[in-house]
């Protein structure tokens, strides 16, 4: 009996949509960062689901990718949070709508 990733993929799509919505809707930079993390994890989930479909229960091809992605995400979160702190120090706010100096 072959594994159908439907439920997993639906979950992943759901998570991705929540993440995207968070990024687009939230004005607080902190929440935007969390939305990005959520989208990353949705992608990881879909990797694992497809891996199960194409290389069977023992295949590890698709399962290795999330490991890398998680490591990169950790590093990215680190840098992101550090930048967030430094932005907050100079701007005294995390409201993304206030960051509009680029247009001039």
């Amino acid at each position, binding site marked *: 009996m072959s594994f159908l990733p439907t439920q997993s993929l639906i979950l992943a799509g759901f998570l991705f949509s929540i993440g*995207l919505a968070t*990024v*687009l*809707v939230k*004005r607080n930079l902190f929440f*935007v960062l969390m939305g990005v993390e959520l989208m990353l994890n949705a992608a990881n989930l879909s990797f694992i689901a497809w891996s199960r479909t194409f290389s069977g229960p023992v295949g590890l091809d698709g399962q290795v990718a999330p490991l890398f992605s998680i490591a990169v995400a950790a590093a990215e979160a680190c840098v992101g949070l550090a930048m967030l702190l430094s932005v907050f120090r100079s701007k005294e706010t995390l409201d*993304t*709508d206030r*960051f*509009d100096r*680029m*247009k001039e």
Partner: protein
Amino acid sequence: MTNLLWLLPALPAFGFAINGLLALAGARRTEGPDRGIVGFLALLFPVLSFILTLVLWQNLSAATESVRSQSELLGVKLQAPAFAQTMGDWIRAGDLAIDFGFRFDKLTGIMLLFVTGIGSLIHLYSIGYMAHDRGFARFMAYLNLFLANMVVLVLGDGPIVTFLGWEGVGLCSYLLIGFWHHDEANGSAATKAFLVNRVGDLGFLVGIFLLWQIMGPGSSLTYEAISAWFRDPAHAAQLATPAVAALLTASTLLLFVGCTGKSAQIPLLTWLPDAMAGPTPVSALIHAATMVTSGVFLLARMADVFAMATTTLHVIAWVGAATAVWAAVTGLFQHDIKKVLAYSTVSQLGFMFLAVGVGAFDVGIFHVFTHAFFKAVLFLGAGSVIHALSGEQDIRRMGGLARKLPVTFAAMFAGWYAIVGLPFGAGFWSKDLILERVYVHGGIGLYSIALATAALTALYMTRMMILVFWSPSRVDAEVSHHVHESPLSMQVPLWILGVGALCVGFFWADMIHLDWFARQLSDVVGPAQAILVSGHGGHGPSPWLLAGFGVTAAVIGILVAFGLFRNGAFRENGREPMGTASRWWMLAFDGLHTVVGIWPVSVVAWILDNWIQPLLMGILRVFGWLVELAGSAIRLLQRSRLRTHMALSVLGLALLLLFLARELL
């Protein structure tokens, strides 16, 4: 041995690189780099180049001797040997194939011997002359660069390689004329020399390309190939057709235009007197001994081509004669010691072209050779006088220096003795050969012009010598305290070149049957001269009689000069001796350049500036406005909100995915 040819230009070029770097490295310091090191290096490489030339010359002579004895043994005329080295491909364009190569034959050897030899002496002289100048290292670097380019010019195995050196020496001439660039006049003299030479260079290039057209596409552009093509009897019929003959005349005339630019002949001669703005060693090396004679060298190098273009040779002879007499007259009116010598150089160059024009290529080169010695010593002596008088160049404020500057006087006396053509000096033999050839092959008209010029030469040179050395002193009291003989590094070149000015004529003393020089050149220019001379079988009067005329002309000139200037008498009060007439005489060619060269260009420039420029700018404005419009339209997409950006990029990604997946849907 042959594969060492590249070292000849590379050695001075290496000196240029080192000294240039030293000059740059010391640019920030007030004193500049160490003069001892710079002077040593600057002298070392030219001397090495000279020694190498000597060695190569020895080998070539030995090879020539063995070939000569072989051909006598076999009874067949064998090709004269020459060293050649090809460095590799240079230009490959369709039918045109040019290699970068050097060729060392007897003509090249003779030129190189005095270019590197006199060049080394002048480097030595410069070490003393420029010792107190802040730009010492820069100066020596430029001199080395000049020597490298001059060697490339002479050593090139084809006109294109020669052209590379030709441009290089032009650049160095420009850099060295404007060496003291803090004075604006020097800068404009340099620019003038550069621009006037560009006109000539254009003629040179077009002339070469026309020559290539005549020889037919695909033919090789080396001197060897060109000579072989024009010597080949199979091409005689082709050359006789009117179209090809006209093309050849045009080509040779254009090449000659190139020579008039470099060698300061009518009409492109005005830059050379102005070029005296440079330091005196530069005038001696570039504007008397070597670079300005490269026009004569080029004509001799392509003797086989010019032998087929008799019309051009007539033009060359008449232009040379006209230049000689014009410059000699102008030299009479000059007050600046270097200007006198500059016009004298122009006049002597005219003599060389006159010789070439009547088909005596070897005699022309011989005069180049002797002139290099006596004009170099005259210039270096003038530099020594200027040095002694703390920069004074006006001969009206000199006089009575013979006793105070004995070495300089002795050297300049030797140079004077040679240039006026008194018996057995260098100029006597070479000028006499020119006069003889002109009489036999050029006709009485050219001969009388040449003879008159010889008398004028004696007149203005003696005037200069009287005013500088013999007449009562008119030196400022303050300056005369400081008068001193030059340092040893300046005296040594004066001694050597002074002796040379008296003796080098014996390399070809025709009347006493010493013809070493002619035998060296006979392999290179012999065939061409044989063609030209074959028409006139007749012999002129005895060479001793013609020499007598030449010496009489010189003596008359000297006596007249003593009669006129004996007391250093001058019409002072700042007026020219002959008022406006002499001014017009001197400025005639500047005026001609203005009318022929500058006015048409100015008209074109005015039209471009006032009509074409606004039109083009209008078209450009339209494009600029369109770009601006597009930019402002695209700028509407640029929102400042981060979230809007994100939404737009997500939208874009979604659209992209839809587009990629359109077949699945």
